């Protein structure tokens, strides 16, 4: 058990085994290398929180094959960085942005996160395919959904 102290907020107790290592960090956050998954109960959306930078907190959700089609392919470099993961042990997550659009939660399909569950190692994998949407309408904002209903 590791104690990660966020000076202004709280102490979060983290099982070492539940920490995911991102050697390259996330894009724009190269020094935020260890993440934990925090869930407050809204469906399958979780908060991927860096343990050393409180502002590096991403909402993520599993890649939905029914909506998005097959999961992305890893490039040779990405394969190597993720230590040649078994395809069945590779977890693909989409980064959500609930802050930029008042009506929609947006999903960035161009740079999903891949985690090798065997090694707990992850990386944000920028995709070369320009067809992938940076602002995919993932879901209506929860308040908006109620109004629409």
């Amino acid at each position: 058990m590791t104690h990660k102290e966020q000076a202004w907020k709280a102490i979060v107790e983290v099982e070492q085994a539940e920490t995911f290592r991102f050697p390259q960090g996330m894009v724009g956050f190269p020094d935020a290398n260890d993440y934990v998954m925090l869930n407050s109960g809204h469906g399958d959306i979780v908060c991927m929180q860096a343990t050393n930078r409180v502002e590096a907190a991403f909402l993520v959700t599993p890649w939905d094959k029914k909506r998005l089609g097959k999961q992305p392919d890893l490039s040779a470099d990405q394969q190597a960085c993720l230590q040649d993961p078994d395809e069945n042990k590779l977890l693909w997550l989409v980064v959500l942005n609930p802050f930029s659009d008042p009506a929609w939660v947006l999903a960035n399909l161009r740079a999903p996160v891949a985690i090798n569950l065997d090694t707990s190692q992850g990386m944000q994998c920028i995709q070369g395919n320009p067809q992938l949407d940076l602002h995919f309408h993932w879901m209506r904002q929860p308040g908006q959904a109620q109004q629409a209903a």
Partner: protein
Amino acid sequence: MIVLRRRVGQAICIGNDIRIVITEVEPNTRAHLGIEAPTSIPVHRLEIYEKIHQENCAATQGDTMAWLKGAANDS
């Protein structure tokens, strides 16, 4: 910024591990670069990298846990 003149087939190195080779130059249009770098160093087109950077900053500009709790209460 350092500006170096190179011909097709010539290269530059950055540090010990990175080599960039000019593989082809299209007249007045594009240069083709071959890049050899350790897998630990991500290589991207700058404009794409900057877009993703911008998206990640936008995705973390608010209190994600507060949003998640609010969404759970609303659902």
